[in-house]
């Protein structure tokens, strides 16, 4: 029995992923002006935000986020997020850079145009290390940054939370939980009540504007 449940859960989470990506790419239905696209609640401190995060997670929501002006330690566990996969991207890119850098130098100086310099072997491994190293670092750093942009779906100038005027404080000194309407569990009243129950202040619907 449990295996069927697992399968269903897996399919559901895949559907969520696809939904998320479509929304990001702007493929999904556009927000109509006046449509409720989410709920936003303010919390007064990092500690309060962290407690709220755990409760929203336990409520079963998936399309929610906790906004703060700085990263809060322990929030990943409170939200139940899996560790970032960025490290794997960077490792792969670094390996490609390393092998590619060495191969480039071998191709250029030892194979394609054999260049004899001061009697050194054509494939002079030690002399090729510095450039190989630099290319490894370059590939890793570029992947770390652009991989991060990809995982965060940036640049994305349009998002439900930006409909709120109060949300401007999220980059200053305010702490928010937002729950988006595309979530399966989203119900305007019940979601509002949940946020109220867990101590949210200044709760507001995120209403699409023109």
């Amino acid at each position, binding site marked *: 029995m449990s295996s069927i449940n697992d399968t269903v859960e897996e399919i559901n989470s895949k559907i969520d992923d696809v939904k998320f990506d479509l929304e990001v790419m702007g493929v999904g239905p556009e927000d109509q002006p006046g449509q409720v696209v989410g709920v936003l609640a303010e919390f007064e401190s990092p500690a309060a935000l962290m407690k709220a995060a755990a409760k929203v997670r336990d409520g079963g929501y998936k399309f929610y986020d906790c906004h703060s002006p700085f990263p809060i330690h322990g929030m990943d566990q409170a*939200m139940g997020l899996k560790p970032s996969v960025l490290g794997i991207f960077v490792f792969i890119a670094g390996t490609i850079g390393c092998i590619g850098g060495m191969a480039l130098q071998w191709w250029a100086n030892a194979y394609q145009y054999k260049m004899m310099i001061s009697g050194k072997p054509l494939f002079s491994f030690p002399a090729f290390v510095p450039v190989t190293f630099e290319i490894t670092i370059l590939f890793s750093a570029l992947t770390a*940054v652009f991989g991060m942009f990809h995982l965060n779906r940036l640049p994305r100038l349009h998002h439900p939370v930006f409909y709120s005027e109060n949300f401007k404080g999220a980059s200053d000194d305010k702490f928010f939980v937002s729950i988006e309407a595309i979530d399966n569990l989203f119900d305007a009243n019940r979601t509002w009540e949940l946020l109220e129950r867990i101590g949210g202040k200044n709760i507001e619907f995120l209403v699409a504007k023109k």
Partner: protein
Amino acid sequence: MSAKANHEIDPFDPPLVEGGHSFGEITEKVCSVVEKKPGKEPIYWWLLLPIGFTGVGALHIFLGWLFWEGTGTWGLQNQAYWGWAIVNFVFWVGIGHAGTLISAILYLFRQNWRTGINRFAEAMTIFAVCCAAIFPGVHIGRPWLPYWLLPLPNQMGMWPNFRSPLLWDVFAVSTYFTVSCLFWYVGLIPDLATVRDRAKNKIRRYAYTALSMGWRGGNRQWQHYEKAYCILAGVATPLVLSVHTIVSFDFAVSIVPGWHTTIFPPYFVAGAVFSGFAMVLTLSIPARHMYHMQDLITMRHLENMAKILLLTGMLVGYAYGCEFFIAWYSGVLYEQAIFILRASGPYAWAYWTMVACNVLSPQIFWFKKARRNEFVLFTVSIFVNIGMWFERFVITITSLSNDYMPSSWEYYSPTLIDIGTFIASFGVFIFLFLLFLRFLPMIAIAEVKAIMPEADPHHHAGHGKDDH
């Protein structure tokens, strides 16, 4: 923990943000500088701007003359093929290193005090590398063939020689510049979002919206962001060590007496950090007064930097001594001769300027009073900047102008074009730095907030309450 929560000052760990500011006040303090109406900048900003701008203009004139006339306009001669251009290149690249040290290495060691100064140390890095890149860029003799530096085959199907340290240098410096820019920009994103959210006028809102790319400060973003930042710090750390190592290979891999030594890589890296921290002090002391940032760039920051100057100053002092020892111990006549000439020959004045500035002047930082006196800090930082330029001058010029054959020895003197280009490069540096102070948050707002005790989710807001 409880001492921090109750705002008692721990003498061994004083607060990194003074004045008991809230998160909102920090935002206001840093962002208000960027948001001033044009014309409301501090008076010193307006006094320095024309100097910087003149430098930018003068650089164009000097380089234009160089391209018109050729490298003969410089003081280069038959022995000294590398003159001020290389000295200036190493000087500027070295200055950059402190920025990366602060942003990457101190991050990995969890030195929280870095947050007050990292943003502008990183800016300094980028602008210093820009200035550095000018010199080898215009030194190539045939300036219409710069692509020969790139890994591309030329019209004969021939590739650059990858065994040459000069090509390693191209890779090292360009990678360093790219990674420094990426690191800086990633750090800026949350702060650009802060400026965006406070923007009152349309142009500013559009500009900072585009620059911050729609940052929402959600934890799903912070999670990947922090990972990326950590990885960048992890790759920038070996990178910064490799860059000056490779710069030192430009010298050490050749067989010129005085250059061909294995101590060069660590010696150059220590010197780079030394000169870079001196430059951070030179910039941060006036900047904290100009913009009233004394609560964020505190005496503790300055004192820590003074300690690093003392340490790295003694490291370069050790290297100077070690070079003499190895020259004697090697038993090589030329090696010994060049070092005797350095200390007593025609360039002895430069050598002893270097020793006085780099080894002697930081010794005053053994005294706590000196480490906490801005006037002393600023003066010593200027001495160190001068001394470190002379270090590169001594290394480059003494070894080249006195080669194996005494009949070809000649005293090297720079031309006005040499001197002018170098001074103009300071103008470029100042100009870029002033623009940075005006348009970007000079202190990493999000990072400063994150190290305040209130940012800890286990921090208890109640003053005087018992903390467990």
